[in-house]
């Protein structure tokens, strides 16, 4: 590795770390316990963790196969499909939330159907939070995993086939273990994105304490009355994320 890469790398790292350090320094630590242990914070934290976890699993379950199809499938117009997958990244999250609302809201195309068929209303439920998070986080998982699948190539899958393994077996026992680092970093990205998701959630799921008010929504609300509280709550989010990621990441390196 060329030595002088440390210089831009250091700048990049500072660009990320210094603002966060600044936040920490600004925080009035004596008020922290009171802020973080309030009922509202704890409930938002619990909700954030649960929804982010469920959404990440959904991203893996749905986005994983989509990445495989994009990396291995032979379909005309694949290039176009690949661009479409990136849309949630570009769409301002609030607009994304509106789009979901139009589609799955009570008056929406799918929403009406769901209500008629099953009596289910999606918006303003925890399910809506999960849906909003999954929508915005899916591209992260898909793009990371597709890259890993392309880099890994199909050589080992071919070897498995010549040993008599069906595509499904080869997928489970060869492809998945080989791209596990890529899958895990994709999942970490998706989880982080879910944890920080705000715009789509507030537009689609609303901000109801205990049901849809995740930590970022609480931060937003706290900002209305008390900026310092908002900053303190963001730090809680940061700490939670770093802990979860530090727990999840080492496996990526081991495998």
């Amino acid at each position, binding site marked *: 590795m060329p030595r002088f890469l440390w210089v831009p790398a250091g700048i990049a790292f500072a660009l990320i770390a210094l603002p966060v350090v600044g936040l920490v320094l600004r925080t009035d630590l004596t008020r922290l316990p009171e802020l973080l242990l309030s009922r509202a914070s704890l409930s938002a934290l619990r909700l954030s963790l649960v929804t982010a976890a469920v959404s990440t699993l959904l991203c893996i379950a749905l986005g994983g196969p989509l990445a495989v199809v994009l990396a291995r499938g032979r379909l005309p117009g694949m290039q176009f499909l690949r661009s479409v997958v990136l849309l949630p990244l570009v769409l301002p999250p609030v607009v994304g939330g509106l789009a979901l609302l139009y589609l799955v809201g009570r008056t929406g195309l799918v929403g009406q159907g769901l209500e008629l068929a099953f009596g289910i209303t999606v918006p303003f439920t925890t399910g809506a939070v999960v849906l909003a998070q999954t929508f915005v986080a899916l591209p992260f998982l898909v793009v990371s995993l597709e890259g890993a699948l392309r880099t890994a190539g199909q050589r*080992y899958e*071919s070897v*498995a086939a*010549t*040993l*008599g*393994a*069906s595509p499904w077996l080869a997928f489970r026992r060869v492809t998945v273990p*080989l791209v596990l680092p890529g899958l895990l970093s994709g999942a970490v990205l998706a989880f982080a994105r879910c944890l920080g998701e705000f715009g789509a959630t507030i537009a689609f799921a609303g901000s109801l304490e205990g049901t849809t008010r995740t930590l970022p929504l609480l931060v937003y609300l706290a900002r209305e009355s008390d900026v310092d509280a908002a900053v303190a709550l963001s730090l809680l989010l940061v700490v939670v994320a770093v802990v979860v990621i530090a727990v999840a990441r080492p496996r990526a390196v081991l495998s």
Partner: protein
Amino acid sequence: MSTGVEACFVVRRPAFTLDVALSAAPGEVLAVLGPNGAGKSTLLGVLAGLLRPDEGSVRVGERVVTDTAAGVHVPPHLRGVGLLAQQALLFPHLTARDNIAFGPRAHGVPRREARARADELLAGVDATALGDRRPSQMSGGQQQRVALARALAPEPGLLLLDEPLAALDVDATPAMRGLLRRVIREAKQTAVLVTHSALDALVLADRVVVLTAGRVVEEGPVREVLARPRSAFTARIAGLDLVPGVRDGAGLRTPDGLLVSGRAEGVEPGEAAVAVFPPSAVAVHATRPTGSPRNVLPVRLAAIEPRGDVVRLRAGAVPGGPVWVEGLAADVTPAAVADLAVEPGDDLWFAVKATEVAIHAAG
């Protein structure tokens, strides 16, 4: 359960066209010889189903697995065809044992049984100590051994082997060759074997196909093709004399009861065997020689074939003498021919030292 194979296809690439027709009967071993870049690996890829030919068809057993005209292309894992590719490509995330057990597991063999089979094959390739290692923890030759074991493990109906004995050390080569022989010859396994060694072809194969620049230039029983090479490449790769018989003590007993002395490699007394030696090792005498050469054979000179800077003397049988000398070759220098002043029809003695004769189990 072994299946035959029949293939006739064309693969077109920018600067290369592979256009072949070949077949192997059930239980037959077909060797594929040819220079670098002749299309040998490409051929195996098509048979395995990893490549689709541009035209043509492949039949494995009763089943048409590729037929471009009919749009048939059975995927590799449903062909019952195993492939040992030129590069080891061991699964990097699995131990040697799990690499070998992968195939049996894919065929539904229970885990315990698959691992037992893997351990057996590990012992077979002399790599028992490597069972728990990952590929990154093995040397090049060790990886090659494990790859060989992995390819053999699922016992496919048709086995394709791309230079299985490359990268092995001098100790390992005969041992691995012996293992292959047991697995593919004794089990009547249909196999297609790419190799650069005439000895491998002689020991392991029934028939041989010689490929040059994407075309079959020669084809037939191994001994015939190597004995009467029609292409320059075959001529260079060939050049081994071969006597069939049964192993007996320190040598090989021919059908007419004569003993050919030699060094037996991986063959038990009483087993069918061949004695193999290079024509360059055959000394030619006008009178019966005395001295160390143990094998002194009366022959009647059938032909004198100049080839480059040596002359090949081709033997015929002497009336009353052994008939199996027919076709044996001796390579001598032109000066030696001049000295001996021989011509076809003359009776001569072919002498071969026992140490030059390798006795292998019969192909």
